[in-house]
């Protein structure tokens, strides 16, 4: 008897474990048939996001509760994952039979790559009524004119600088041309201050530099063509490499930058800016939030200023164009698509967007109506530059499909480390090998 009981217990445990595993990924159950969710249909949606820590964790939790209160038939289960998880595990999740119903989506070429799985829901018909309120922000999540993703914030890359260190070096106003930037670097060095921090270990901060030179050298149409065709053969890209070569030759970066991480420790390039070891860094608008975590200096926000990437005299590109991107969501086809789209609309409502700005210090909300909530003057300057930009070029590694995008980052990082070449950068995206 004893053995039998034990066997039964083991069998029960195994069954439970299997059941738990099979429901672990996501649950999506529409009890009412069909794709339309009537008010009586109960819907359960699993939501994979990267809000693993406060304040984002709390904001997403309260968004889930508030949405459930307004739509009692929809229950959303928030499942936070580390950021890197999405890069490595989404292919596997999208291959499985029960992917999450809603998940973190950065748009661009990576989204186009994911669509090949056949699991991404085309949300166009559900969001057509309101997507216009996001303006040009929504375009980065469209593939072939169809909305497979919805952004909830936007990013813009520019220079974050220490006003106190600029004053110390006798710099009265931020540079607007490359020549001015180089002369400011010289002034800072003369005062024993390393001018520019860069997290070369991570590769993508290196790529920001080359991409900005490309955006200044190439016209908007050339950039767009290059991204859609994964082809950088236009001469202006080689000119960008020349500009970068000349700029690196002025030795503007911190010593040993190839091994410096970009974020998350005082020894990272962001940490160096936060602790006054470098005077500026070319980074996204998440920088102020990042700096707060890397220093004990609570007044760091007031010391920060922002200016856009300077004009390059020879360039064909629009000097107001910015590089940026954003965070967003996709729904999968197993999800109750109307309910999913409704929830994404709720996240883009002015109310939640203002919460994100004031509590989570996200840089720029996807919904411009919430921009009024931005208080940090440096972030305000970044937001203004973003809104008045001729166009926003999505980070190349995101605009391109994943493989050529990361091949480009690696080729640029090799170039920064003195082991690359212009042809290696240009060819990295076109040869599918690029290994």
């Amino acid at each position, binding site marked *: 008897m004893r053995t039998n009981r034990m066997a039964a217990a083991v069998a029960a445990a195994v069954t439970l474990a299997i059941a738990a595993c099979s429901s672990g990924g996501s649950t999506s159950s529409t009890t009412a048939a069909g794709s339309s969710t009537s008010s009586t249909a109960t819907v359960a949606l699993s939501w994979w996001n990267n809000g693993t820590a406060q304040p984002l964790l709390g904001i997403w939790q309260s968004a889930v509760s508030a949405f459930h209160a307004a739509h009692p038939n929809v229950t959303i289960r928030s499942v936070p994952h580390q950021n890197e998880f999405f*890069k490595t595990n989404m292919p596997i999740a999208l291959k499985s039979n029960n992917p999450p119903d809603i998940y973190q989506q950065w748009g661009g070429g990576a989204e186009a790559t994911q669509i090949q799985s056949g699991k991404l829901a085309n949300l166009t018909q559900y969001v057509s009524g309101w997507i216009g309120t996001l303006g040009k922000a929504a375009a980065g999540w469209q593939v072939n004119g169809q909305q497979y993703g919805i952004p909830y914030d936007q990013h813009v890359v520019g220079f974050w600088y220490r006003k106190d260190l600029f004053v110390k070096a006798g710099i009265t106003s931020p540079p607007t041309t490359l020549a001015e930037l180089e002369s400011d670097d010289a002034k800072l060095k003369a005062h024993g201050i390393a001018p520019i921090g860069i997290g070369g270990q991570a590769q993508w901060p290196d790529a920001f530099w080359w991409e900005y030179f490309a955006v200044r050298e190439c016209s908007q149409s050339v950039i767009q063509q290059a991204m859609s065709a994964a082809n950088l053969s236009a001469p202006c890209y080689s000119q960008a490499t020349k500009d970068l070569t000349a700029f690196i030759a002025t030795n503007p970066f911190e010593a040993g930058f190839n*091994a410096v991480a970009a974020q998350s420790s005082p020894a990272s390039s962001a940490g160096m800016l936060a602790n006054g070891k470098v005077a500026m860094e070319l980074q996204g608008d998440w920088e102020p939030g990042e700096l707060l975590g890397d220093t004990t200096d609570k007044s760091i926000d007031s010391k920060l200023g922002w200016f856009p990437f300077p004009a390059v005299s020879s360039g064909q590109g629009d000097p107001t164009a910015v590089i940026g991107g954003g965070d967003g969501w996709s729904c999968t086809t197993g999800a109750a698509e109307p309910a999913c789209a409704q929830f994404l609309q709720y996240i883009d409502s002015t109310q939640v967007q203002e919460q994100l700005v004031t509590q989570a210090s996200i840089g720029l909300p996807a919904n411009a109506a919430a921009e009024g909530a931005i208080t940090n003057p440096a972030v305000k300057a970044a937001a203004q530059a973003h809104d008045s930009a001729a166009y926003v070029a999505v980070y190349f590694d995101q605009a391109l499909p994943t493989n050529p995008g990361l091949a480009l980052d690696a080729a640029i990082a090799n170039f920064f480390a003195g082991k690359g070449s212009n042809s290696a950068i240009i060819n990295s995206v076109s040869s599918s090998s690029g290994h």
Partner: protein
Amino acid sequence: MARTRTAAAAAPDIVSGAVAVPPASQRRSLRKRIELTVLLVPPLALFIGFVLVPMIFAIWYSLYNWNGYGPLTDFIGLQNYRGVLTGPVFHQALLHNIIIAVLSVVIQLPISIGLALLLNRRMRGRGALRLAVFTPYVLSQATSAVMWLMLLSHGGPVDALFRSAGLGGLVRFWLASTSLVLYTLFFVITWQFIGFGIVLLLAGLQGIPPELREAAAIDGATPWQVTRQVVLPLLGPTIRVWIFLAVIGSLQLFDIVWIMTLGGPANSSQTMLTYLYFNGLERTQFGYGATISVVLFIISFVFALAYQRYALRRDTSGALTRAVQ
């Protein structure tokens, strides 16, 4: 399995006494079969499920151009293998693995033997010293990597230590220099794993009967001769096993490198596994990544077989060459 079922069915009969008890030899063989089944089935199931099946999948994926999304449709034969085997970055990565393996044997082994011999002597503070040497091995590789990343950052604590000792001229870009980074990583690997080698060798030393040393000493052998002619030959099997583990470990080097350098700068610390991770998972070239894993498997397998055949032949004779009765 058939015999197992028979045993279960036979049990009530034995209790009731209705059937004659089988002869002792038959019972023994039955018991042995049950024992073997119980002991072998779980590991075999794990081995098949988590080693053999994924390996077959990897070989299958390696024949496709596949980014992980959608079905496997783009069959490209051995093109991925050509890509891996002719790729300059893979050559670099392979060379780095070999350099680490050779350095492990040439540098770590003598240090390990020396320290093991020292720590095998009776002396004050032996326990504390053994603990100190072994402690790094207990840390997770991620912890050591993060710690050394901070210590070795430019202008960081290690540089400060050099300067305070008047050796400021020796300070280098430990992790940023493309020519130095691999050796910096080797230092960290040595720091982490030397304790394991020492403990292994200490165990080997414990297995050498003291009478042999005493006999040699009585015959007039100097301490050096005792070590050279008696101890080291008897430590041979342990040393050979250590070399095997060190080389396989070097081929599979990943954690410390990935956390400290991501294989950079400019691939100068890329290993086969960091190359696999970057291309397979980050760049979502699953077919290409699977190919790297198959190539890595073949390299490790060939080395393991050759080493077993030639170096470990005597040590494992009996254990691997004939069935234990």
